[in-house]
C-alpha cells in the first residue's frame, strides 16, 4: 500500500505528466523527489535593460547597513549643502527634494541610480561621479538619521477627499494600491520606497508626472510608472498636496 503510494507520487505521476509539461522523464522524477533539475537556459530573446541595476543582494544590503554617518556628514558639508539643507529645506522645492527622514536604502538607491544615469539628472551625476559606492552609503547613512522636514501646517489644511481616498485606500477598479500601502510608516512595502510625508508637494507632483511620461523610469518593474500613468493631473496635484498636509 505504502509502496504503491510512493510509486505513484514519485514515478508514475511525474513521468506521465512529463510529456504534457515538456520536460524529460528524468527531470520529472528529479523534481518529484525535490532534487533540483538541471537548470535550463533562460529562453529570452531580448537583452535585459533593467530599470535600475540596484539589487538588494547581500553585498548591497551590508554596504548600506555599514554606511558611516560621520563620514557622510563631512561629505554632505562639502558637496550637498548648497542645495540640500540639513533641515530638509532646499533652494528649489519643485526640482530638489527634501532628503531628510528617508531610509538609508531609499537614499542609496536614488544616489546609485543617478550615478549610473538610470535616473537622469545633470546636476547630480557629475557630483556623484566623483564618489564611490561606499561614500554613497555614508551619505545615505547621514541623511537617514536627520529628522524629517517639518511640513507646512498652514499650507493645505483640507486635502481633497479624492486624494485622501487614493492615498489611504487606493482604487481597486483601476488596480491602484493606496500610496500608504508602500509609503506609510508601517507599510512593509518595497525596500527602497521613500517616505512622502515631509516631502515638497511640487517635487512629488513633478516626479509623478515624470513617471507618467516615462522621463523617469528607474522604478524597478515600473511600479511607479504604472501607478502614475493612471492618475489624472488633478489627482497628481491633490495627492501631492495631501502629503503636505499635517498628520
Amino acid at each position, binding site marked *: 500500500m505504502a509502496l504503491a503510494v510512493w510509486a505513484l507520487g*514519485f514515478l508514475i505521476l511525474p513521468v506521465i505528466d512529463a510529456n504534457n509539461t515538456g520536460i524529460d522523464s528524468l527531470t520529472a522524477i528529479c523534481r518529484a523527489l*525535490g532534487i533540483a533539475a538541471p537548470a535550463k537556459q533562460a529562453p529570452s530573446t531580448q537583452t535585459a535593460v533593467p530599470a535600475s541595476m540596484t539589487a538588494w543582494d547581500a553585498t548591497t544590503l551590508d554596504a548600506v547597513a555599514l554606511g558611516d554617518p560621520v563620514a557622510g556628514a563631512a561629505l554632505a558639508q562639502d558637496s550637498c549643502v548648497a542645495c540640500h539643507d540639513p533641515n530638509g529645506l532646499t533652494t528649489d522645492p519643485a526640482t530638489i527634494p527634501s532628503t531628510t527622514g528617508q531610509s538609508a536604502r531609499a537614499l542609496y538607491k536614488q544616489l546609485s541610480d543617478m550615478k549610473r544615469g538610470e535616473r537622469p539628472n545633470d546636476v547630480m551625476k557629475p557630483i556623484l561621479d566623483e564618489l564611490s559606492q561606499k561614500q554613497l552609503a555614508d551619505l545615505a547613512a547621514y541623511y537617514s538619521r536627520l529628522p524629517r522636514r517639518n511640513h507646512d501646517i498652514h499650507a493645505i489644511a483640507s486635502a481633497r477627499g479624492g486624494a485622501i481616498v487614493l492615498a489611504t485606500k487606493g482604487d*481597486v*477598479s483601476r488596480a491602484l494600491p*493606496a500610496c500608504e500601502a508602500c509609503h506609510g510608516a*508601517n507599510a512593509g512595502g518595497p525596500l527602497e520606497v521613500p*517616505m512622502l510625508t515631509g516631502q515638497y508637494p511640487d517635487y512629488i507632483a513633478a516626479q509623478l508626472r515624470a513617471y507618467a511620461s516615462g522621463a523617469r523610469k528607474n522604478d524597478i518593474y515600473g511600479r511607479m510608472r504604472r501607478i502614475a500613468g493612471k492618475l489624472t493631473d488633478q489627482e497628481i496635484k491633490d495627492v501631492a498636496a495631501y502629503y503636505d498636509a499635517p498628520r
Partner: protein
Amino acid sequence: MTINNRLILAHLWTAFAAFGVAILLGLWQMWVRSPLAAPLSTPDNYYLSVTAHGSAMAYVLTTFFIMGFGYFVAESALKQALPAPRLAWAGFVLGIVGTVLVVATVLSGQASVMFTFYPPLSASPLFYIGLVLVVVGSWIWCALMIVAMTRWKKANPGTPVPLAMYATVANAILWLWTTVGVAAELLFVVIPAAFGWTQTVDVGLTRTLFSWTLHAIVYFWLIPAYIAFYTMAPQAAGGRLFSDLMARGSFILFLLCGLPVGLHHLFMDPEHSSGFKTVQMMLTVLVAVPTLLTVFTVTASMEIGGRLRGGKGLLGWIGALPWERPMVLATGLSFFMLWFGGFGGLINMSYGMNAMVHNTSWVSAHFHMIFGGSVVIMYFAIAYHIWPNLTGRLAPSLVLQRAQLWLWAIGMMVMSLPWHWLGLSGQVRRVAQFDYADPSISWWAPWMIMSVVGGGMLVISAGMFIWNLVSFHFERTGAAKPGPVEYARALHPGVPVPAALNGFVLWNAFVLVLMAAAYTYPIAQFFILKPPQAVVHRVDRTP
C-alpha cells in the same frame, strides 16, 4: 465539584473575552468587504483587524479554552486534585503576558502580518515573542495533563483511564508534536529576522515548518468538541457511548493522522514536489477516518438515547431525543455544520481540485464552518454544561441558551455558505475591496450583504452567549444545587481496555515514524537546494 474553579474560570473567561472582541472585528471586516460603505475602512485598519481577528480566534480563544477545559476534565473525570496548581497559574500568566504583547503590537499597527505571518513580511519581534509565550504557557498545561493521567494510572491500576481524560491527554500530546514546527520556524528564522540579526529568510523553509503546525493545530482546536460528542452528548441525550474502544481509537487516529499531512496546505506551492504532495494527500484521506468514525459512533450513541426515550422505527429516535437540552441541540447543529465544513475540506484536500479554491473565500467558508461552526458551538455547549459546576448555580435560562445556539448555527450558515460559490467564482480571501462595478463580479453584492447579515447574527449570538454565562454568576444560589458533571457511560461497561488503548507510548513511536517519513525530506530539501533567500520586509517601522 471541582476544586480549582478560579483557575478554570480564569482560562475560560480569557478565552471568551478574546472571542467577544474578535467577533466584532469579524463583523466589521464583512462590512468592509461588502458593497456597503463601512467606517474607517482603510487597508491599514483592515489588515490590522484581520490579524487581530485571526490571532484572537485561532490562538487566544482556542488555547485558553482548551487549557481551562482540560483542567476541568482532569479534576472532574479523574476525581482527583490537579497536580501543581501553581504551575498551572504560571502557565496562565505566561499566556496572558503573551496575549497582551500580541494585542499591543497588533493594535498599534506593528504586526499586520495575519495570524499566519508568512515571511518575508515581518512584524515587531514582540508579536512573535507574545505568540511564543502563549505556546510555552500551553506546554505547561500539556505537562500537567500528562502528569495527572500518569498519577491516576498509578493510583488505579487495572482501571482504564476515563475516556474524557484519555482524549484530553491525546490532545496535549498532539499539541506538543504540533508546536514543534512553528516553534522551529519562530525561534530559528522568524524571530532572528524580526530582531534584525538576519537580513534574509528562506521563505520555502518557513512555509514548510509552518505547514507542520498548520493542520494539526486544527485538531488541537477540534478535540474538545469531540470530547463533548463522545462523553457529554450521549449522557445529555440519556444514551450510552456506543463503543468506548472505538472512541479511544478515534482519538489515537487524530494523533497519528493529524500531523503528517500539513503539506496539503502547500499543494499550490512551487517549492514542493508532486511526490510528497501525493504522499501527504493520501495521508490526508486517512484523517477523514476518525471524523467519519465519530459521526457513526456518536450517532449510534444518540440513537440509544432516543430509543430508550421511546423512539421507534428507523429514524423515530431522532425526534425522541431531548432537543431542549443545549448539549444535545448543539451536537445536532454541530453535525449539521460539520457536513458543510467537511465537504469543503474534502475538496481542499483533493490534490488537483485544490486549484479551484486555494486561497479563495471557499477556504474561509470551510474553516468558518468547521471551526467557527462545528467546534465553537461545542465550546458554547461545554461552557453551558460545566458552568453550573464551576459557579455552583443552576442555569438561569435554558431558553436563552437554546436561542443562542440556534442563532449561532443559522448565522454561520447565512454568513459562510455564500463564500463557497463566491470563492469558486474567484473571490479571494484577505481582501478588503472589490470592484463591484465590474460586471463579472457585480452579482457578488447581494451575497456579500447576506454575509454581513449573517455576521450580525453571530455578533448577537455571541453577545447572548456572554450574557448567558455572566448571568450564572449573578444568579442567586437556591436550595437546588447542581450535581457533578457526569460523563457518558459505555454501552458495554467493564470491557477490558488493551494497554495500548490506555496509554500513548506506542502511538508516539508511530507519530515519530510517520513524521520522519512525511517531513524529513521536505525540510531537508531546503538545506540541499539552498534556494536564494528573500530580504525581510518589516511592517513595524519606516522603510
